[in-house]
C-alpha cells in the first residue's frame, strides 16, 4: 500500500512541478537557516573537555571591599584570583590536581635563520597544569613543582610553535627565546585546543585562541611578564594594587580536579573557611559564603560566552522557519482541498479516512524529505560561510553527525507536522457528496 501511496504522491507532485519546487525551496531555506544557527549555538556551548569536564572545578573568592562597585563595566574583578589567594589554594593542595594560570603574549624569536619572528600567545601556569587537563605530550614532559618554586626558566612549546621557531618538533633541551628571556625547552605538546578555551580569562577570544607555549607562573611574576587578560586592582595604594604579587589585584585563573562529591563538598567548605580566616585577618570584608566553586560547564554558562548576536540570529532563523511552515500548511491545504473531488471518489469507493490521511501524509513527508535534503545543503553552505568570516567562533563551526541527523529529523518532522492539518481537513471530505457539488 505504501508503494502505491508513494506513486500517487509522486504523480500529484509532478502535476504541479513549480509549486512543488517552491514548497521544497521554502522548507529548505527555513531548515537550512535554522540548522546553521542551531549548529553554531551547539558548538559554542559544547563541552571543551568531554572526558574530564565533570571533575574540573574553578574556585572563586570575593576579596573586594564592601564599597567597591565596578560601575557596570561588565568585568567583575572577583572572577579572577589574586596572587596571595591563588598561592594559598595551591599550597593547601586540597584537590587531586590544581593549577593557577594567566595568559600572556610574548615576542618569539626564531632560532633557525630564515624563519619569521612572531607574537606567540601562551600561558603562565604551575606544574600540575598538564596533569590537571591531560595535555598530551609529543616529546619530553612538563616541569616540576621544584621548578615552580625556583622560578626555573623552562618552557613547554606547542608542536606548531616549535616548528615555527626551530623548523622541527623534537626540540627538548634546546633554548627558546621568548620576550627578553631564554628558556630551556622541557616538553612539546601535540595540538591541544579545547574550544572554548574555558580556563582563560573572559576578556580574550575564547573560541579562537590556542596556547602555543606554557611557562612557570613564578617566572612571569619574577620578571613581570605582560599578562593578556584582565588585571583589576581595587587598592587605594597604587603600588600594591598594580603589582602582580599585590593582594588587591586579581588576574589569575585557578582550576582544580575533584573526583568525588565528598571532595567537592570538602573543597566548598575549605573555600568558605579560608574566606572566613581572611576576613578575621581583616583582608576580606564581604561574607565568607560569597566564595563559590563552579563546575566547568556551570562556569561556561556563568560567563555567557555566546554573543547576543548569535542568539538574535537563531531567533531570526527560527522565525523564518515558522513563516515557511505556515506557508506550506496553507499551500498544502489549498492543494489537498482542490483534490476534494478525487478524495470524494476514493472515499465513495471504500477508502477509509485513515487511508486518505496516510496517502496525503506520505505526500507531505515526501516534500519534507526533499526539503530536508536541500536544507542540509543550505546549512552546509551557511556553515561554510561562517567559517570563512573572520569571526571568533569561525573555526569551530562544523556539523557533527548528531547535528546532521538532527537536521534531517527536524525537516521531516516539520513538514509532516505541516501536512497533518491539511491532511486531517482533507480526509473529512464527505464521500460522493463532493461529486454532486462540482
Amino acid at each position, binding site marked *: 500500500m505504501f508503494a502505491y501511496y508513494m506513486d500517487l504522491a509522486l504523480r500529484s507532485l509532478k502535476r504541479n512541478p513549480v509549486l512543488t519546487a517552491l514548497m521544497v525551496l521554502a522548507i529548505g531555506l527555513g531548515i537550512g537557516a535554522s540548522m546553521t544557527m542551531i549548529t553554531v549555538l551547539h558548538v559554542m556551548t559544547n563541552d571543551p573537555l568531554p572526558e574530564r569536564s565533570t571533575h574540573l572545578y574553578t574556585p572563586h573568592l570575593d576579596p573586594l571591599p564592601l564599597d567597591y562597585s565596578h560601575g557596570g563595566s561588565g568585568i567583575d574583578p572577583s572572577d579572577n584570583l589574586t596572587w596571595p589567594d591563588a598561592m594559598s589554594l595551591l599550597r593547601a593542595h586540597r584537590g587531586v590536581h590544581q593549577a593557577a594560570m594567566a595568559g600572556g603574549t610574548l615576542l618569539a624569536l626564531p632560532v633557525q635563520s630564515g624563519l619569521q619572528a612572531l607574537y606567540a600567545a601562551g600561558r603562565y601556569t604551575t606544574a600540575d597544569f598538564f596533569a590537571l587537563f591531560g595535555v598530551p605530550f609529543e616529546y619530553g614532559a612538563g616541569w616540576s613543582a621544584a621548578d615552580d618554586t625556583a622560578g626555573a626558566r623552562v618552557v613547554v612549546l606547542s608542536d606548531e610553535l616549535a616548528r615555527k621557531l626551530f623548523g622541527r618538533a623534537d626540540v627538548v633541551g634546546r633554548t627558546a627565546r621568548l620576550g627578553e628571556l631564554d628558556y630551556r625547552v622541557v616538553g612539546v605538546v601535540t595540538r591541544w585546543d579545547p574550544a572554548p578555551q574555558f580556563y582563560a580569562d573572559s576578556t580574550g577570544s575564547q573560541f579562537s585562541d590556542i596556547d602555543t607555549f606554557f611557562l612557570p607562573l613564578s617566572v612571569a611574576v619574577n620578571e613581570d611578564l605582560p599578562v593578556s587578560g584582565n588585571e583589576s586592582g581595587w587598592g587605594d595604594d597604587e603600588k600594591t594594587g598594580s603589582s602582580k604579587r599585590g593582594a588587591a589585584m586579581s588576574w589569575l585563573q585557578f582550576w582544580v580536579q575533584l573526583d568525588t562529591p565528598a571532595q567537592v563538598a570538602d573543597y566548598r567548605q575549605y573555600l568558605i573557611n579560608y574566606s572566613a580566616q581572611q576576613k578575621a585577618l581583616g583582608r576580606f570584608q564581604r561574607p565568607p559564603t560569597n566564595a563559590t566553586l563552579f563546575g566547568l560547564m556551570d562556569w561556561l554558562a556563568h560567563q555567557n560566552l555566546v*554573543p547576543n548576536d548569535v542568539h538574535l540570529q537563531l531567533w531570526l532563523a527560527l522565525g523564518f522557519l515558522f513563516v515557511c511552515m505556515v*506557508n506550506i500548511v496553507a499551500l498544502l491545504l489549498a492543494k489537498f*482541498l482542490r483534490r476534494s473531488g478525487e478524495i470524494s471518489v476514493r472515499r465513495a469507493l471504500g477508502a477509509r479516512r485513515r487511508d486518505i490521511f496516510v496517502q496525503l501524509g506520505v505526500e507531505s513527508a515526501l516534500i519534507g524529505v526533499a526539503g530536508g535534503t536541500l536544507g542540509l545543503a543550505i546549512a552546509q553552505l551557511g556553515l561554510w560561510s561562517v567559517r570563512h568570516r573572520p569571526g571568533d567562533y569561525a573555526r569551530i563551526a562544523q556539523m557533527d553527525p548528531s547535528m546532521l541527523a538532527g537536521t534531517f529529523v527536524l525537516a521531516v518532522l516539520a513538514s509532516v507536522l505541516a501536512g497533518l492539518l491539511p491532511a486531517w481537513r482533507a480526509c473529512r471530505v464527505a464521500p460522493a457528496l463532493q461529486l454532486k457539488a462540482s
Partner: protein
Amino acid sequence: MQILPILSSLRRHRLTAVLLVLQVAFTCAIVCNVVFLIVQRVQRVSVTTGIAENELSVIHSSGYTAHENAQARHATDLAVLRAMPGVRSVAAVSWSLPLDQSDDSYGVCPDDASKKQAMARRSADGTSCVQPSMYDGTEGLIGTLGLRLVAGRDFTPDDYVIGSVHKPAVAVITRALARRLYPGKDPLGQSMYLGDAVIRVVGVVDTLLRPNLRTPAVDGYSVVWPQKPDGRTVTYVLRSAPRDRARLLREGRQALLAASSNRLVNPDRMEPYTDMRARFFQRDTTMIGLLIAAGLGLMFVTALGIAGLANFWVQQRTRSIGIRRAIGATRGDILRYFQTENFLIVGAGIVLGMALAFGLNAGLMTHYEVPRLPLFYLPIGALALWMLGQLAVLGPALRAAAVPPVVATRSV
C-alpha cells in the same frame, strides 16, 4: 467594488484564509523589526571618526630588544618613512587609533572639587568627571590624522614629554568633551584634573572617535596630548593619496627593515586604515547582511504563498468566473475582485502584524539592547506588504481575468 461577496467566498475557505493572514502577520511583525535592526546597525557602522580615513595607512613595528633607544629609533624610522615618495606626512603613536580597540582612558575632572568627590565615591558616576580616551603621538599627529582644529592651537615642540611616566602640561580635546567638561564656557585655557596632574586645554578639534565604542553619548570623548611613544612597539601612521596606500605599505615595511632588521614588522599588522575600521564593524556588517537576507527571504516566501494560493483559487473558481463573465462582468471586474480579496487578506494580516511587531519588539527590548520600535515603521511595513501582496496576486488575477465567458457553458 462589492466587498460582501468576497467575504462570503472567503468564508468558504476559512482555514486557508486564516493561515494566509497569519503568515502575512508574522512576516509583517518580523520584517518591521528586522528593518529597524538594520537601520540601527547601519547607523552604528556609519559613525564618523573625524580622521582622514581614506588617506591613512598603519604600520606596526616591534623591536626585538627593550634596551635600544626608542626615541632615536622612532626619529630614524619617521625620517625614513617621510622620505618615501607619495608620503604627505607621518607620525608615530603608541597604539591607540579610533576604532582599533586598544583603549587608553583616564578619569578626568573639570575642577579639583569634583575630582575629590569622584575619589571619595571611587567612581566618576554622578560627578562632572568623565573617562575620555587618550591619544598620544609624535609631532604633527593632528595634521597627519587630518583632525579639524576648530579653536586654539596645535602643539609646539616644547609641549612634548617622552613616555607615559610624566603627564604633559597641555592637551587638545574634542568639542564633545569640551561641552561635557565646561558647559557654557570657553574651553581654551581651562584645566583638566587627571590624578595629580593639571592639564591645560590649548585646542579643540571637531570630532575624534574613541578606540572602542560604548554609547553614542560618550563615544566622542577624546583627548590628544603631546606625549611621545617610548616603547619598543610603536605604530606609524602614514598619510598619502588613497591610491598610494598599498605601495607605501609594501615599501614602508622594506624601508623600516632596511633601517633596522632587529625588529618585527608583521605583515598582518600593517594595513590601510579603512581595513582596520572594517574589522571593527565586521560583526555588524555580517549581521546587516544576515538581516537583509532574512527580510528578503521572508518577503519572498510570503509572496510565494500568496501567489500559490491565488493560483489555486483561480483554478478552483474558473467556472464561477466564467459565469460571472457570461452575465456581464468585465475583465476589470474579475481582476479587481482578486486584487480586493488580496487587499483584504493582507490588510487583516497587517492589523494583526502590527500588534505582533510590538510584542516582538518588547521581547527584543527585554533580552537585547534594542530601543523601542518607532511608530513610523508600521505604515511603511504595511505599505510594503500591501505592495508585495498586490504584486504577487497580479499574475493569477490576470489569468483569472483572461478566463473567457464560454467556460460557463462547459461542465468541469
